[in-house]
């Protein structure tokens, strides 16, 4: 849970009704399993504390489930094109049935981070959908949630738009304009390549981190088994040697427990942030796709306008009575084109800001993760050293 400051890009904080600094802080807590079998899901208690005037009050508690978070993410993605929307934990359908404590905790943590990142983003935090998410009652939320799923719930106008786009794309292919239009921006190309390669590298690191968690568990298990065997051997030997084996066995079992604990810490504080990093990069890829769409749209309109211009000139020369109509069409298209260009340029601008923010954020996130990792390993090793060291005096005594 992070307490965030409200920020507006550049300008200082405007005076608020309350004397304290503006804040919006959210907790995702108390996961509860509801429903049965295939219908089972987990609900979370989402507690919002804020002094933003747009909100209904200083504190609000609602119950939300995973698909509500998905709704929020999708809405933000639609509305804030160019922004790197914070990633959600995977919708793993297999583990859902098993609902291990670890899985539930990981998901809760990830969802908590998700909303708080939104709350700390200067644009996203102003989103109406966020307010809805944090405050609406459960029925409203359910209604909204079921509206947004899939293409069939889209409004007719949107559907027409999509259909038109598909038409032009098909005709382009038919007419032989094969390659989809892409920006010829070398810097942007570099960025795209960077993002794609970064995902590969990060995935590999995350994979090994996950394996490392497993290794801790496995080593813990074998220490436990070894400890038991040592104790049995000690019982067989008896006397000083037997005691020595027995002590060794006990220590071994203690360390086994310690290793299991560390495995859990490692999962939560190191592997998960790496996974989160991978997800963030994947979210950027989605934004890249959006930008490509916007660019294509802008290009297509520009093409169409050129044709219309030529057509209009022709009509004007022939003094056709269709001129009026054509002029109107032309004006409309011009406006659309300008709008498309604006949208595209906005995406570019926003992305440039976002990439800076992203790099800063990730350095911060990974810095913390690395610190936790190193501290954890260091503590673990010290515990191990201390545990074994405590056996030495007696062993020395036996041997002297």
């Amino acid at each position, binding site marked *: 849970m992070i307490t965030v400051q409200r920020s507006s890009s550049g300008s200082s904080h405007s005076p608020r009704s309350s004397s304290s600094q503006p804040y919006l802080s959210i907790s995702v807590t108390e996961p509860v399993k509801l429903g049965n079998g295939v219908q089972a899901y987990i609900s979370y208690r989402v507690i919002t504390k804020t002094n933003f005037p747009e909100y209904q009050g200083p504190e609000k508690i609602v119950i939300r489930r995973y698909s509500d978070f998905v709704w929020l993410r999708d809405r933000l993605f639609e509305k804030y094109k160019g922004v790197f929307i914070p990633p959600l934990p995977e919708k793993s359908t297999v583990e859902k049935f098993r609902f291990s404590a670890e899985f539930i905790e990981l998901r809760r943590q990830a969802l908590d981070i998700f909303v708080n990142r939104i709350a700390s983003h200067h644009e996203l935090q102003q989103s109406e959908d966020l307010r809805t998410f944090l405050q609406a009652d459960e029925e409203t939320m359910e209604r909204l949630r079921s509206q947004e799923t899939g293409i069939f719930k889209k409004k007719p106008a949107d559907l027409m738009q999509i259909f038109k786009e598909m038409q032009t794309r098909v005709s382009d292919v038919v007419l032989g304009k094969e390659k989809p239009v892409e920006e010829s921006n070398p810097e942007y190309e*570099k960025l795209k390549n*960077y993002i794609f*390669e970064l995902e590969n*590298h990060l995935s*590999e*690191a995350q*994979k*090994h*981190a996950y*394996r*490392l968690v*497993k*290794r801790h568990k*496995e*080593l813990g*298990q*074998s*220490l436990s*088994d*070894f400890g*038991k*065997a*040592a104790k*049995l*051997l000690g*019982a*067989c*030997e008896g006397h*000083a040697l037997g005691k*020595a*084996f027995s002590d*060794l066995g006990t220590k071994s079992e203690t360390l086994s427990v310690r290793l299991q604990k560390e495995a859990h810490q490692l999962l939560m504080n190191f592997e998960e942030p790496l996974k989160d990093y991978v997800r963030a990069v994947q979210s950027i890829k989605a934004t890249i796709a959006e930008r490509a769409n916007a660019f294509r749209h802008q290009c297509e309109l520009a093409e169409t306008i050129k044709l219309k211009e030529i057509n209009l000139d022709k009509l004007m020369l022939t003094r056709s009575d269709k001129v009026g109509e054509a002029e109107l069409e032309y004006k409309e298209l011009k406006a659309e084109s300008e709008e498309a260009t604006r949208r595209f340029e906005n995406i570019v601008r926003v992305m440039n800001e976002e990439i*800076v923010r992203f*790099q*800063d954020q*990730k*350095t*911060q996130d*990974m*810095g*913390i993760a*690395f*610190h936790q*990792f*190193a*501290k954890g*390993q*260091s503590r673990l*090793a*010290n515990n*191990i*050293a201390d545990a*074994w*060291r405590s*056996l*030495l005096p007696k*062993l*020395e005594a*036996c*041997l002297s």
Partner: protein
Amino acid sequence: MMGSENLDSEEAHMYASREEMENLVLDEPSNNNNGTKSFSDYRSAMSSLADTHHPLSSPMAAPADSDPLLTPPPFRDFRNPNVATDNSSYIEPPSYSDVIFSPFDENAVNEINGVDSPGRSSDSSGFLSKSTSSSSDYVKITVSNPQKEQETSNSLVPGGNTYVTYLITTRTNIPGHNGSEFSVRRRFKDVVTLSDRLAESYRGFFIPPRPDKNVVESQVMQKQEFVEQRRVALEKYLRRLAGHPVIRKSDELKVFLQVQGKLPLPTSTDVASRMLDGAVKLPKQLFGESVAVAPHEVVQPAKGARDLLRIFKELKQSMANDWGGSKPPVVEEDKEFLKKKERMHDLEQQLSNASQQAESLVKGQQDMGETMGELGLAFIKLTKFENEEAIFNSQRARAADMKNVATAAVKASRFYRELNAQTVKHLDTLHEYLGLMLSVHGAFSDRSSALLTVQTLISELSSLHLRAEKLEAASSKIFGGDRSRIRKIEELKETIRVTEDAKHVATGEYERIKENNRSELERLGRERRADFLNMLKGFVLNQVGYAEKIANVWAKVAEETSAYTREST
């Protein structure tokens, strides 16, 4: 090897050695009698594991990475753990571990290097019998230089029948040997002969078990790996023999180690050829002619066709013992012994269990080290990538943090693998003693077969006496004597006399074996306690030492990244 390897082959090598280990280690003893089998498999796995560590103890260098921090430091010499390497970031902080690494480990390190360490004087058999050797006694045996040789005579297959000989070098200062260093060439068959002859001469002793015969195809016999495995096994075996306080002085061993050319010990086939004699004896035995067991024969258990009748009688006796019909004249009355026997059995079970769990502990440490190394590698790649593509300072900062983590992970990985190599050597003691249990079995069965021989002779004697009595009674009824009967009585009396002698000898042998058992049990207990305590101490010290090193490595990184936690809250 170091530095110039590219990542993929390094990784492949890691995987290869791990797979190798997995294939060999997963063999589990199903019962105690198979202990040696998996025991020797495990041992060979462990030795190959230890060997493969050497190339891997150099860290993975990223290709074309000229970063000095990532160039591998030279293989660390434990004798001077604080020697500054050319890698300035890799300074060993003085620690508990450096102070207390014993010379034991120095030898272990040198073993990994393949260096002969002269300091291992009284440790000729490795971990065992540290307490047996007197101060200046010194026998050091090395097995090396395997060579293929051709079977010269009796080659049924033309051009076939090659075998391998090994060069066996002995260094000793014990008087009574010809000089202080000598070598012979022996083949595995010779070792089998030696082992068989020792078993006969040293009944009741805990004779170290010889390496398995490994009945495999002749093709496999020739393979490098197999030959190497066998060489190692032979060396260990001979060293153990030399480590046994009684056997090291045996003529058999002396002859084996010194006499050039053909081994002048009767082979087991020579012994078996007495089967032919037995085949001659058999009809006589079957037709009831009283052929007494010659006294000199009773010092050996009945075996093979030559002793068919004796086997028969002893079997009958043991069945009688089992059914508890007539109480056998001599029983194993030594309650102390029976208690000890049971304890040995119990010990063997626990040793087997502990040995298995030690294997899995070693695997756990191995895997940890590997994965840590892979993680480090992945981060190194990421670091390089971020640095190459960096546009923002935040990226460079992140790359720097990542590099610290990567370097630490690689170091920790190396430490885990070194820790493991040492752990293997320490916990090996468990496996050694488990293998020894075989020899305990052998010694105990020497005892029971000797006892059986005595019991059989006693029964025999009593039935002979009975016959004599009957004959005398019958003969006394005939006036003037029954010449044939009198003759028979004379013969019988002769047989009784011989059998009495045999019984005497057999009893003497039995008592001798009993005493051997007792003294060996005491020696085993003494040595085992010392060796196990040393094992525990070594194991613990090792864990402490490396844990400290690993802790330091990570503490540094934690320190370097501590700024982040202050910022976040």
